[in-house]
C-alpha cells in the first residue's frame, strides 16, 4: 500500500518589539540572565499586565501579510499549567477568540505553485528559559531559570494539514520566513529561537480522506532539521503501518545528533489547561482604521515583488534572488531606478560594489541616499570620472554620506582626458622608458601595458586607460 504524508505546522514567532508584551522590559537577546525583568514580567504577587501597542501592530502586520482575517474583537485567555519557567503558572494567550482567523500562503513547490491554508494567527507571551545541570529537568542536580525571555510577544501561526512532505514543510517555512522578514514583524532567527516550529504528522493510504493517528515532533532547530525530521518520522510511521501495526499518538523530540525522533510523552495524559478569559485585561478591540492603516503600510510581498521586478527591470534570477532576500537592498535599487534607467548596470553596481562596501562599512542600504548613488553612476556614464575613481568615491559616499559630485570638485578627481593634458605626460614616460618603448616596437604587447600604467600613475588614476592606450600607440608610431 502507498501512504500519503499529512503535515500541519505550528510556528512560534517572536515579534520584533523593543519591549515586552505586557511590561516595559527590554527584549534584547543575549543579555546577562535575569537582567531584563521587572515585577510584572516576573509575575510577582499584585502585578498586572498592560498591552504593548507596538506588539499588537506587529501582530496585525504579520497576520495581514499572511492573508489572515483580522478579528475586530479578540480576547486573551489564561492557559494554566505548572512549569518553573512560567512565573505566573499561566500563560496569557488567545484561545477562543484569536487575533486573526484563516489565511494562506502561495508556495512554489517542485510540483508547482500551491496554496497552504492557515487555521489561525494569535498573540501570546513567551516563557522563560531553563538551564539544567544535566540532560533534563528530572535528572538534573539543579536547574537555573533565566526570565529575560519571559513576556516577549509571540505570534503563533497554525497551518491546516496541507503539507505533504518534509521538503514541502521546509519550502513552506522558507516562504513564510521571507514574508515575515519582509513585513518587518520578526527577525525570524531560528538560531536565537525567535522562530520555532512544531509539526503534527500522520500517514494515510493514498486516496483515503480521513486522517491517521498523528505524532507531534518538536525541537527542530533549523529548516534542514524540519525536513530531515519529518522524512524520518514519515518513514517510521510507514514501517509501523506496513507491518500491520498502529501508530500511537505521542510527542517526539527530534534528536539532531542521532537524526532520530524520540518519544517524550504519550498524548493520553495530555494536560488540561483550564483556559478561561484573562480578567486582568479588557478584550482587544481593533478599529477598522487601525487595521487599514497597517494594511496600507504593508510592503509588497516577496512573490509579487519578484514577478514585478523581473518584468519591469528585466533582471535575471540570481539578481532577483539577492533582492528578494534583502528587502532594503531592493528598496534601494528601486528608489535609484526612478532616476536612472540603465537597470542592468544599476543592478550590477547595487548587488556588486555597493553591497560589498555596505558590508565593509557595516552600513544598511536605508542609510544611503539613492540620489547620491545615481549621481555617482551618472558621473561615470558621462565620462567625468573613471571606474577606479568611481569605486573610491563610492566608498567615501557610504562611509560619510558625501556627495560624489562635490568630492570630485573638492579633490580634483575629474577625469584627465584629451591630448593637451595627456600628451606631455606620455612624452615624459616615453623619454624615461626607452627600453620599454623599444620592446613595444619589437612587438611585445606587454610593454604597452607597462607604459600605460606609468602614465596612469602620473595622473593618479584619473585618465581613461582606453584613451591612454590609443594615444600612446599613436605617439610611439609618430616617433
Amino acid at each position: 500500500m502507498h501512504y500519503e504524508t499529512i503535515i500541519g505546522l505550528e510556528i512560534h514567532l517572536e515579534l520584533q518589539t523593543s519591549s515586552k508584551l505586557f511590561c516595559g522590559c527590554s527584549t534584547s537577546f543575549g543579555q546577562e540572565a535575569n537582567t531584563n525583568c521587572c515585577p510584572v514580567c516576573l509575575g510577582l504577587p499584585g502585578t498586572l499586565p498592560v498591552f504593548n501597542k507596538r506588539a499588537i501592530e506587529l501582530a496585525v502586520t504579520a497576520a495581514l501579510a499572511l492573508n489572515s482575517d483580522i478579528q475586530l474583537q479578540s480576547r486573551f485567555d489564561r492557559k494554566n499549567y505548572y512549569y518553573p519557567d512560567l512565573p505566573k503558572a499561566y500563560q496569557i494567550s488567545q484561545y477562543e477568540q484569536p487575533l486573526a482567523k484563516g489565511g494562506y500562503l502561495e508556495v512554489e513547490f517542485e510540483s508547482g505553485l500551491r496554496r497552504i491554508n492557515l487555521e489561525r494567527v494569535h498573540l501570546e507571551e513567551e516563557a522563560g528559559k531553563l538551564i539544567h545541570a544535566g540532560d533534563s529537568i528530572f535528572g538534573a542536580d539543579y536547574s537555573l531559570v533565566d526570565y529575560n525571555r519571559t513576556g516577549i510577544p509571540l505570534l503563533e501561526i497554525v497551518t491546516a494539514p496541507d503539507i505533504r512532505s518534509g521538503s514541502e514543510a521546509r519550502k513552506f517555512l522558507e516562504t513564510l520566513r521571507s514574508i515575515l522578514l519582509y513585513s518587518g514583524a520578526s527577525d525570524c532567527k531560528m538560531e536565537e529561537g525567535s522562530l520555532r516550529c512544531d509539526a503534527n504528522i500522520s500517514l494515510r493510504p493514498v486516496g483515503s480522506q480521513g486522517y491517521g493517528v498523528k505524532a507531534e515532533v518538536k525541537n527542530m532547530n533549523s529548516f534542514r532539521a524540519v525536513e530531515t525530521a519529518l522524512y524520518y518520522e514519515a518513514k517510521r510511521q510507514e514501517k509501523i503501518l506496513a507491518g500491520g501495526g498502529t501508530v500511537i499518538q505521542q510527542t517526539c523530540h527530534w534528536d539532531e545528533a542521532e537524526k532520530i525522533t524520540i518519544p517524550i510523552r504519550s498524548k493520553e495524559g495530555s494536560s488540561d489547561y483550564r483556559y478561561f478569559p484573562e480578567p486582568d485585561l479588557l478584550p482587544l478591540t481593533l478599529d477598522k482604521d487601525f487595521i487599514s492603516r497597517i494594511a496600507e503600510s504593508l510592503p509588497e510581498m516577496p512573490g509579487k515583488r519578484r514577478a514585478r521586478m523581473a518584468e519591469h527591470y528585466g533582471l535575471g534570477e540570481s539578481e532577483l534572488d539577492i533582492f528578494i532576500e534583502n528587502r532594503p537592498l531592493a528598496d534601494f535599487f528601486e528608489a535609484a531606478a526612478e532616476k536612472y534607467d540603465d537597470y542592468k548596470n544599476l543592478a550590477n553596481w547595487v548587488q556588486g560594489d555597493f553591497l560589498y562596501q555596505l558590508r565593509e562599512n557595516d552600513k544598511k542600504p536605508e542609510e544611503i541616499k539613492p540620489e547620491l548613488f545615481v549621481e555617482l553612476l551618472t558621473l561615470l556614464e558621462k565620462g567625468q570620472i573613471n571606474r577606479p575613481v568611481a569605486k573610491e568615491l563610492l566608498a567615501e559616499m557610504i562611509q560619510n554620506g558625501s556627495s560624489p559630485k562635490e568630492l570630485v570638485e573638492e579633490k580634483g578627481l575629474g577625469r584627465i582626458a584629451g591630448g593637451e593634458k595627456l600628451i606631455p605626460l606620455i612624452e615624459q614616460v616615453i623619454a624615461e622608458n626607452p627600453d620599454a618603448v623599444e620592446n613595444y616596437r619589437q612587438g611585445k604587447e606587454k610593454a604597452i601595458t607597462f607604459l600605460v600604467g606609468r602614465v596612469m600613475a602620473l595622473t593618479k588614476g584619473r585618465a581613461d586607460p582606453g584613451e591612454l592606450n590609443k594615444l600612446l600607440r599613436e605617439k610611439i608610431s609618430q616617433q
Partner: protein
Amino acid sequence: MKLYEKSAAELSLLLKKSEVSSVEIVQSFIDRIDRVEPQIKAFVSYTPESALVMARFIDDKRMRGEEQHPLAGIPVAVKDNICTEGIRTTCSSRILENFIPPYDAAVIESLKKAGMPLLGKTNLDEFAMGSSTENSAFHATRNPWNPDMVPGGSSGGSAAAVASAMVPLALGSDTGGSVRQPASFCGITGLRPTYGRVSRYGLIAFASSLDQIGPFSTTALDNALLLSVISGYDLRDSTSLPNSVPEFHSDLEIDCKNLRIGLIRQDPSDGFDPEVIAAVKKQAAFLGDAGAEIEEISLSMIDCGLGAYYLIAPSEASSNLGRYDGVRYGLCIEGEDIESMFSDTRGRGFGPEVKRRIIIGTYALSAGYYDAYYLQAMKVRTLIRREYEEAFKKYDLLLGATTPTPAFKLGEKVDDPLQMYLSDICNLNDALAGIPSLSVPSGIHSTGLPMGIQLSAPPLQEGTLLKIAHFLEQRNENHPKRPGIQLTEEGSA
C-alpha cells in the same frame, strides 16, 4: 478626649490650626495600639518607626508652610494583601510569610504622596478567603465590641483596628463583601468602590474580576477623604477607569427630597435577624421623613449570586494562586523532583480554606465542566448586572441589611464553610455587578453588637452613597461610635 478617639477630619483640623503635631497624633495611636492590640490582634506587621519618620517629615513640611493634603500626617493601616515596598506582605499565609515586595501598590504610592504615615499591615483571612479573619495562618483577630466574636472578614484586621481606635483610617479589599461585612460587624463605615475606581496594581489577587480596594473609617467624611486619596486612573491596571475623580469630601450635604430608594425585602424566613431588619427600616424611615421616596423591592437574582460567586471567585483564585510554587519567592519545600517541590510547597503553604477554593476552581474550569459551571456562572453574573441596571432606572440607590445577623462567635462557623459563605449573602451581587456599595452602622443589637445597613448605587456614584451615609450618621447621634473596649482600658477618660 484623647487624640486617638478623634476622627481623621477632626485631627486634620487640629493639625491645620497647629494645635497638635503629626508626631503627637501618631504617638497617640502607637500608645493605643500598645495597649489594645494584645487583646484584638488586628496586625500582622507593625511599623511605628517608619510611621514616626513620615510624621516628622510632614511636620517639617507644615512648619515650612507647604501646602498639604488634608490627610497629611494622619496615620493609616493597610490590609496585608496590599504590597508595600520593603515591608513584608503576607496575605496572612505561610506561603508568603517572608515575602517582601520590591514595589508599592498604587494605593500605597497614593497614601505616601498624601503624606499618610503607615502604622502597620493588618490581618486577614488567608488570601482574603473567608468571612471571619479566623483563616489567618498567624492568629485570629477579635471583634472590639466583644472579643469572643469575630470581627468579620476577610478585612477583619483593618475593621477591628479602626473600630478599636488603633488607627483612624484603614484600607481593606472587598471581593465579595470583605470590606462591608466586617465594617458592619465592627460598627464602622466601609466602602466598596466601583470596580476600576481604585487601581488594583499591587493588590495581591484573589479573584481579579471582583477584587477592589476600599476604605474603612468611623465617619462618612473620613471615608470620603480616604477614597479621594486612593481613587483615579492607573496606567498599570488595564481595568482601571479613566473617569475623573470628584473630591468626595468637599460636599456631603444631600437633599433627600429628590431621592428614590429601593428597600430590598429581607425576611426572617431567609435567616435575617428581626432586629437587623428593624434597624434597616428605621434608617429608611429617617430618609423617608426627610422626603425620600421609599419603595420595597424584591431582587429576583439575589439568591443566584452566591452560586455564581462561589464558582467565579475560586476559578480565578485557582489560577491566581498558581504562582506560589516555591520557585521564586515565599515558602519553598525542596524535594526529590520538581513535582514534589511544587506539591509540598503548596501543601504546607496553604491553609484549608485556600485549598478548598483552589480545588473548587480547578474543578469548575476543567475541560468538560467549564460550560456547566464557569460559563453558567458568568451568564448569571450578566443577569445580575442587568437586574441592577433595571433597578437603577427606577431608584437612585438600594438599601438593605449588610449582613443577616450581627457578628458570630469565634469558631462558630469554622467547620461549616457553607454557613460561613452565607454571612456575605447581601454583599455578593453588588460585587458581581461591579457597582459601589457601602456599609454604615445602623444601631446596636440587643446582644450589644453593632449592626449595619448596606447602600448600593449605580457605577461611579460613590458620592451619593457617602452623602447618605453622612446624613444617617447625623441622625444616629445617640449610637455609641466606639465599642466598649475603651472603657476597660486603664486611665482612659
